[in-house]
C-alpha cells in the first residue's frame, strides 16, 4: 500500500482476486524489514517485499497461507525468482508459493516442483480466472483504479522538504507500524501493539475523511487477523481453556507469562501499587474470542468480509453486501465483523461511526 503502482500491478491484482475467490484475505505488497539496534534507536532496514500474501482459515480454524511473486517483464530470471520465492515461503512459513510470470521458461517449470513452488503463466492464469468465474464477481479487487485510489489515501504524504507536525508524526508511527513492523514482530505481540497505536491517535479520526476511514478499516483487519491467530492457538490446545491459552499466547508462551507475572508481582511489592499484567480490556477481548472460537464458520471468513465491505460499500457506496460465496450470505461472519468493529472502536476510543457501513449491515 505504500508504494506507487508498478508494471506488475495488473498481475498482482488478478492473482489477489483469484485468492480472494478461494477464500483468502490477501494484502498485497507486503514489505519485509529488519530492525537494527543502533543503541538509542531502532533503525528499520528494508529487506524485500512480497507481491501478494494470501491468508485463509478453514472452518476448524486451521490457517493456510500462500505467497505469490508476480512478474510481467521479459528480463526476469525465473530461476532466480524461484529460489528467492522459496526463501520468502520459508520466512513466512507459507503452505504454498506461486510464481506468476507472463511466460515461464521450461527449465523453471522443471525446478519449481523441487522447490515446492507452483508456477502460473498467462494462459494458466486465464484458465483459473475462467474456472473461478472472476468476471461474475463485482468486487473491484482487480481494478487498478480502486487500487490506486487506496494507495493515494495511505500515509501522510508530505511534500518533499516539508516537516511533519506533531499530529502527522503520530500518524506516521501508525502507518509505519501497519506497513512494516506488523509483519516483522512476533505475531503474539501485535494485538496489544495495535490497540496501543490506535489508542494514541483515536481522537484524530474523522469519519468524513477517506484517509481516516481507510486507516480505521486497515486497523480493524489487523485486529481481526491478530484475534484469529490467537484463536488458532487456543483451538490447537483443545479450545477448552480459552482464558489460560489466550494469556499464554499473547505473553509469548507459558515461561514468558510466568516471568511477566513475577515482574508485576515485584512491581506491586516495590511500588505498593495495584498494577496488573492483564490490561483492563483483556476481558472484552476474551469475550469476543469466545464468540469467534465458538462460531468458526463465521470467524474464519470475517477478514474477507471486511475487505469486501471496504471495496463494495465504502469505496463504491453500496448499502448492502453481496454474498461472498455461492451458498449465500454468511450472517455469522457479518455479525462477528460488527462485533469486532464495535469492540475495536471501544478499546481504542475511535468513534464507532467510522464503521457505519459495517454497522448498517
Amino acid at each position, binding site marked *: 500500500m505504500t508504494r506507487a503502482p508498478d508494471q506488475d500491478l495488473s498481475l498482482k491484482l488478478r492473482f489477489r482476486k483469484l485468492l480472494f475467490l478461494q477464500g483468502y484475505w490477501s494484502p498485497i505488497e507486503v514489505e519485509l524489514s529488519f530492525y537494527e539496534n543502533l543503541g538509542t534507536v531502532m533503525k528499520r532496514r528494508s529487506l524485500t517485499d512480497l507481491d501478494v500474501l494470501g491468508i485463509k482459515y478453514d472452518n476448524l480454524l486451521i490457517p493456510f497461507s500462500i505467497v505469490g511473486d508476480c512478474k510481467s517483464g521479459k528480463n526476469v530470471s525465473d530461476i532466480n525468482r524461484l529460489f528467492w520465492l522459496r526463501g520468502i515461503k520459508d520466512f513466512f512459513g507459507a503452505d504454498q508459493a506461486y510464481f506468476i510470470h507472463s511466460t515461464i521458461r521450461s527449465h523453471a517449470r522443471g525446478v519449481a516442483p523441487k522447490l515446492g513452488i507452483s508456477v502460473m503463466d498467462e494462459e494458466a492464469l486465464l484458465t483459473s480466472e475462467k474456472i473461478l468465474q472472476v468476471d461474475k464477481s463485482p468486487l473491484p479487487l482487480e481494478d487498478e483504479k480502486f487500487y490506486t485510489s487506496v494507495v493515494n489515501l495511505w500515509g501522510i504524504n508530505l511534500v518533499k522538504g516539508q516537516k511533519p507536525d506533531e499530529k502527522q508524526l503520530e500518524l506516521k508511527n501508525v502507518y509505519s507500524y501497519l506497513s512494516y513492523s506488523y509483519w516483522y514482530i512476533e505475531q503474539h505481540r501485535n494485538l496489544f501493539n495495535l490497540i496501543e497505536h490506535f489508542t494514541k491517535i483515536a481522537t484524530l479520526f474523522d469519519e468524513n475523511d477517506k484517509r481516516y476511514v481507510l486507516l480505521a478499516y486497515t486497523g480493524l483487519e489487523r485486529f481481526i487477523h491478530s484475534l484469529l491467530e490467537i484463536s488458532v492457538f487456543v483451538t490447537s490446545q483443545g479450545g477448552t481453556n480459552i*482464558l489460560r491459552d489466550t494469556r499464554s499466547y499473547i505473553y509469548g508462551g507459558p515461561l514468558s507469562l510466568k516471568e511477566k507475572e513475577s515482574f508485576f508481582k515485584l512491581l506491586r511489592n516495590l511500588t505498593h501499587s495495584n498494577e496488573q499484567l492483564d490490561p483492563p480490556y483483556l*476481558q472484552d477481548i476474551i469475550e469476543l474470542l469466545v464468540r469467534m472460537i465458538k462460531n468458526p464458520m463465521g470467524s474464519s471468513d470475517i477478514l474477507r468480509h471486511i475487505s469486501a465491505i471496504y471495496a463494495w460499500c465504502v469505496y463504491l457506496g453500496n448499502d448492502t453486501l453481496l454474498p461472498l460465496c455461492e451458498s449465500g450470505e454468511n450472517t455469522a461472519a457479518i*455479525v*462477528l465483523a*460488527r462485533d469486532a468493529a464495535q469492540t475495536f472502536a471501544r478499546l481504542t476510543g475511535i468513534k464507532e461511526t467510522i464503521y457505519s457501513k459495517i454497522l448498517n449491515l
Partner: protein
Amino acid sequence: MDSVILGLRAQDFHESLKNTSAFGPKDVHYKKTLLIGKAAVLAMHLRGLLYIKDYTQLEYAAASLGISSLELPIVLGELEEVAFISIARSGSVIRRVEIRVPEFRSGYKELGDRLKDLNPSEIEIASLMALAKLYSGPAEKDKLLRSIGLDSTQLSIMVDVMESGLLLATQVVEGQPLIYTPLAVDGNPSIYLEWAQKFPSEVAVIMQLLKEHQGMPLSDPSMTNRSAIGAAIDTGVLMPVEINGATGVQSFVFAPHGGLSQEEYIILDKARAILGCVRYGQNFSSGRPIKYPKLILERLRDRKRFKKGHPDLMSQYGLLVEKFIGHPIDVGNGMWNFEVDDTDENMKALNVALEMLEHGDAPSAKIDIEAQKALLNPSGYQGPLPTRMKLSKGIKSSPKTRAEIINQMGKLMRGVVLDD
C-alpha cells in the same frame, strides 16, 4: 448494595412474580426491578447464541419466560444498554438480534449497575435489600420492617407484593413472628425457623459461608466446630451430599435453595451431586487433587468426559450414576473415565453446578428448556407450545395497600399527575 447481588435479586423478583396477575402496586413500584429481572432471565437464555434472525421466534421464547411481546422491545433495549446484545435494524424493523452476553463472567454486575442507574424507587431498594438479608437467615418481623425505613403504606405494599410471589413469608415460632424467604429454604420452613431461632448468632455466618463455598466439606474446620451445623443436618435444614470415594466417605453441604418447581429441584439435586463429586476430588483425592474445579465442570459439560482415566473415578462419581447423570467407562489397567449422558437436564445441572461454584447462586436452575430450545432451533418455533399455560396467581392486598390503590386512583380521577 453489591451490584451482582442486586442483579441476582432482581431476577428473583421477576421469576417469583411472573405468574402473578396484574396488580397496581407491583407494576407501579417494582417496574425497574422487574425490568432488570426480565433482562437478566432473557440474557441467561440467550447466552451462547450468536444471533437470532427470526424475531417471532424470540417473542415466543420470551413469552414463556414471562416477557410479553409488548415488553420485549424495552427489555431488549436494556440488554442493548449493557452491551449484551446489538440490534441490526432497517428503519424500525429489527432484522437481527446479535448476542454478546458474556460467558466468562456472570453479567449480573452489569445488570445490577444498570438497575442502580435507573434509580429504583425506595420500595424497590428496600425490598431488594430485605430479600438479600433474608437469604442469610430469617429475622424478627417487626425488627426487620422497622429497620427498613419505609412508611407504613410502603411497607404494606412491599410485604403484599413479596408475599404474593413467595419471596417473603411469615411464620410464628414460639409466639414470635419470624419473616423469612422461601427462596432460602430447602424443605420444611417450620424446621428451618426453629433451627434459626435456636442458633440466632450462627445462622447468618453459616449461610454466608455456604454461599461463598457451595459444597463445603463437613469435615472442614469451619464446619466442625459449629453446633448449629449438626442440628441443621439432624433436622433436615441442611441436606449434605455424601460421596464414598477412594479415601473414604465424605459429606458436602450446600446453602439451601427454595422456590423451585419439582423439575427444577431435580436439576438442583443433580447439580449438587456433581459439585459434591468435584469437591471430593479437590479435597480428598488419593492422588493429585483437582486444582481448577471450574475447568473440570466445563470439560464435563463441553466434552462430556474427562481428558484421561483415573482409578478413583469409578467410586468418586458413583453417585452420579445413581442419579442418571452419566456412566463409568473402563479404559483399562484399572483406570476409569466417566461419561456424562448428554441430556438437556444434565447439561442444565452442569451449568447450575458451575454457577454455584462461581457465585454461590443457581439462577440457571430456572432456565426454561422449552424456551431455550425455541431459540436454538434454527427452523424457528414449533407453534405456541413453548408458551406453557400458567395460571396467574392473584395478589392478596392488605387494607393499607388497598387504601393506597384507591388514593392513587382518586388522584388520577381528579387529574393529579402521578409522580414516579
